[in-house]
């Protein structure tokens, strides 16, 4: 005791105290004694009451066993049917010997059984939902695959609804998510590389891509960046996204995050890499460009002409959602001469007696819109809808009647909000909402000149950023007809014979044009 106190004063810790981490578990070796092994585990998992220790004594073979698992992470029926029952039945046969090899090879009937020699490996295995089996007299233990915890069933992706697409969305289980992809891409060339990130969370991460198609340098780059992550824990895929992306201070997402299985499969087939993170339904896709954020999975389920028209609508909506308030401000404050006279008169009439300049009106209403959008997301769905209606209709109407803002501002802001929902990817919508404000200020300071210059600054930024070696605006420069086939418009499926050139894929051919033509001829 006195020695311990002295050690504490000088900051020296006891050996036992150091065993608080998986890495520290490396120092402990498996003992022949079950009691010692149990003690070691208790030290490693101190204050973990959910650990189950089950001692088994096989009378006929005079063998003592220790079964260890974590409650809630294992499938109890699997342990009972495939571990305990076979052992008991074998023992009941009479005077026989039971050793480690026999248990592993003959008695345990689960799919995955491995022998481990160290506590580090055992600890990791136990934390992954496996069951450990120690046998008296052996300096080894068995790690038996019994993982099974409660998981959400596969549902339609809530954040990315489509009309024509698949109803299957990713869930929180990495294994299920991989199987959802495997189910759709039935080729041995589908590579699944498993990595582990987070000193404490040990989060499983899977890199999924198509061998022979993907640019192998891209795989190496993504793998390296993930392996370089040194953090305590990973809670969601967005953390991985932020840790591996190129431009940390950009407001534009450089990696696509999706819940949709069809979108992910399409991206893999194009030659992109997907990153699946255990515990989150959002799968990451890289590299991406500006155009990919304006594509919707529905585009590929509809006819090319209608899809192209919808894409044009999306591009126009993009310009409107970012620029419309600034444009209104510039035209009314600086260039009223550009607006038809009857409209100018209407605007002037509606603004009579209002206390604030147009820029203040625009900023007040835009800020209110942001509050409403944010509030409706945080609230439960039925209340959220009510808040949007109350916010949109009642507050807007009240603000006009109270003489705070003009009715035209309400129309402009509503149109801005409506067009922002046309953008299919939420993270991209967020960045657009943000660039609206500097453009309003630029429009307020220098009219159309300010807006044009504001856009030039945004364009320069967009042109300079890249996602894993692919330029964000790479779809639009250099001019290539092939690039246009699946960007602003979408040509018929038979015409999309090549994979996107900007991805530098190893196999550029997506489909045989001759065969596609033959089908058409027939």
């Amino acid at each position: 005791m006195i020695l311990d106190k002295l050690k504490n004063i000088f900051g020296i810790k006891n050996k036992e105290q150091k065993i608080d981490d998986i890495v520290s578990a490396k120092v402990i070796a498996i003992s022949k004694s079950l009691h010692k092994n149990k003690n070691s585990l208790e030290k490693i998992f101190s204050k973990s009451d959910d650990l189950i220790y089950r001692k088994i004594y096989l009378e006929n073979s005079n063998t003592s066993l220790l079964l260890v698992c974590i409650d809630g992470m294992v499938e109890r029926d699997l342990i009972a049917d495939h571990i305990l029952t076979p052992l008991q039945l074998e023992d009941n046969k009479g005077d026989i010997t039971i050793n480690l090899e026999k248990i592993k090879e003959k008695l345990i009937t689960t799919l995955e059984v491995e022998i481990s020699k160290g506590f580090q490996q055992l600890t990791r295995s136990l934390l992954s939902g496996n069951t450990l089996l120690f046998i008296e007299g052996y300096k080894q233990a068995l790690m038996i695959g019994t993982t099974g915890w409660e998981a959400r069933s596969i549902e339609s992706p809530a954040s990315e609804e489509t009309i024509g697409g698949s109803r299957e969305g990713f869930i929180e289980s990495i294994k299920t998510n991989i199987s959802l992809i495997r189910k759709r891409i039935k080729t041995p060339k589908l590579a699944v590389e498993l990595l582990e990130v987070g000193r404490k969370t040990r989060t499983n991460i899977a890199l999924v891509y198509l061998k022979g198609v993907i640019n192998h340098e891209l795989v190496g780059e993504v793998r390296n960046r993930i392996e370089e992550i040194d953090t305590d824990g990973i809670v969601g895929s967005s953390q991985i996204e932020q840790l591996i992306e190129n431009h940390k201070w950009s407001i534009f997402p450089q990696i696509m995050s999706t819940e949709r299985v069809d979108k992910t499969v399409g991206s893999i087939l194009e030659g992109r890499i997907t990153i699946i993170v255990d515990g989150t339904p959002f799968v990451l896709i890289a590299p991406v460009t500006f155009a990919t954020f304006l594509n919707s999975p529905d585009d590929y389920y509809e006819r090319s002409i209608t899809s192209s028209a919808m894409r044009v609508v999306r591009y126009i909506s993009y310009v409107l959602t970012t620029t419309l308030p600034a444009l209104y401000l510039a035209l009314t404050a600086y260039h009223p001469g550009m607006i038809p006279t009857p409209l100018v008169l209407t605007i002037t009439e509606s603004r009579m007696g209002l206390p604030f300049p147009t820029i203040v009106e625009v900023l007040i209403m835009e800020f209110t819109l942001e509050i409403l959008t944010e509030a409706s997301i945080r609230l439960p769905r039925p209340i959220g809808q009510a808040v949007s209606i109350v916010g949109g209709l009642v507050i807007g109407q009240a603000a006009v009647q109270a003489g705070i803002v003009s009715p035209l501002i309400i129309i402009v802001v509503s149109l801005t909000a409506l067009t922002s929902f046309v953008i299919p990817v939420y993270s991209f919508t967020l960045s657009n909402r943000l660039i609206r404000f500097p453009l309003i200020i630029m429009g307020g300071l220098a009219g159309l000149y300010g807006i044009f210059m504001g856009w030039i600054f945004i364009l320069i930024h967009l042109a300079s950023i890249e996602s894993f070696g692919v330029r964000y605006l790479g779809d639009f420069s250099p001019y290539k007809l092939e690039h246009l086939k699946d960007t602003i418009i979408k040509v018929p499926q038979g015409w999309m014979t090549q994979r996107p050139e900007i991805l530098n894929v190893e196999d550029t051919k997506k489909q045989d044009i001759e065969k596609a033509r033959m089908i058409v001829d027939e």
Partner: protein
Amino acid sequence: MSRELESINICSFIIHGMISIRLLSIPRAIVEYAENDSWISVLIMGGYALLIGYLFYWLGLRYKSLTFSQICEKVYGKFFGKIIILGIAIYTIISFSLGIRLFTDGIRIFLLDTTPIIFIITIMILACLYCLLKGVRTISIILDMLLPLILAFILLLVFLSLKNVKFIHLRPFFYGGVKPILQGAREMADPFLTVGIIGYVLPYFKNFKKMKKWIAISVSISVAVYTIILLLCIMAFGSTEIKYLIFPTITLSKSIMLESNILERAESLYMAAWIPITFSTLLLFYLASTLNLKAFFNTKKDRVIIFSQVPLFLVLALYPDNISEVFYLIGWNEDLGQLLIFLIVPLTAMIEFFKERRKNLK
């Protein structure tokens, strides 16, 4: 220098270089000499610009990793080379400064009549500076993105103006013989000299496949734009009236009355369309000026050169008191441009050609 550009990228460099803010005022300058035959002057100078473009390309192919300024140093030797580089530096810096000033005056006339000049100038310089700091690949993407928009705007202007044209204003052809046409062509030398951007960006290209074709197409598009705009101006106003217009091209859009009453004043919108056009041309002048100064000081410090030019641009752009003074200084700078396009570039190519021939004979 990293070679990141594809041969087709040269198109936007050339077109953006050639279609500049000068398109707004150039009809007046040519009509002074060639009257209603001005469009022929543009075609003649266009042919010469194509030749100059090819000379820049030919020289660039001989020294693939060198800019035109560095080539001059190789061809003329260190002393004379530096003198030429200094001349180019004066031309590019003044072109940038006066270009931005001319544009600012246009903005003040048509868009922002009370906004201080320095504010308009500073924002434009900052945009060019930011883009230049991001590198040539970024510049190339920006130019590629803006080009279709710019051409669409010009096309719209052309289609809307067609209603106001009178063919009678084009007659009589060759009223004054060849001399006024050639004098008019000389006025075009300055805006077309920007084809020389080829000589500065070639070291950034990774392939030269079909480059000649792209140069020909881009020069042709630029010449076509100037010719059509000039024809429309002459046909809409007649050569006598153009002489009294500061920005005939903008006045051309002013004459457009939209029956549908969608836009009350089209000229403000067209002035706004010139913002990206001006930005891209100024950006290319800034790029050429930076690469030229790097050759002059024999340095690799891009950032120092880029930042050090900013106060110079600002002072020179603010120097003229009024738009008449801007045009006077532009005229002076045009003489320097004509010296470069008519003497220095062909002479450099000729010396290089004979050097090469002599080497082959040996």
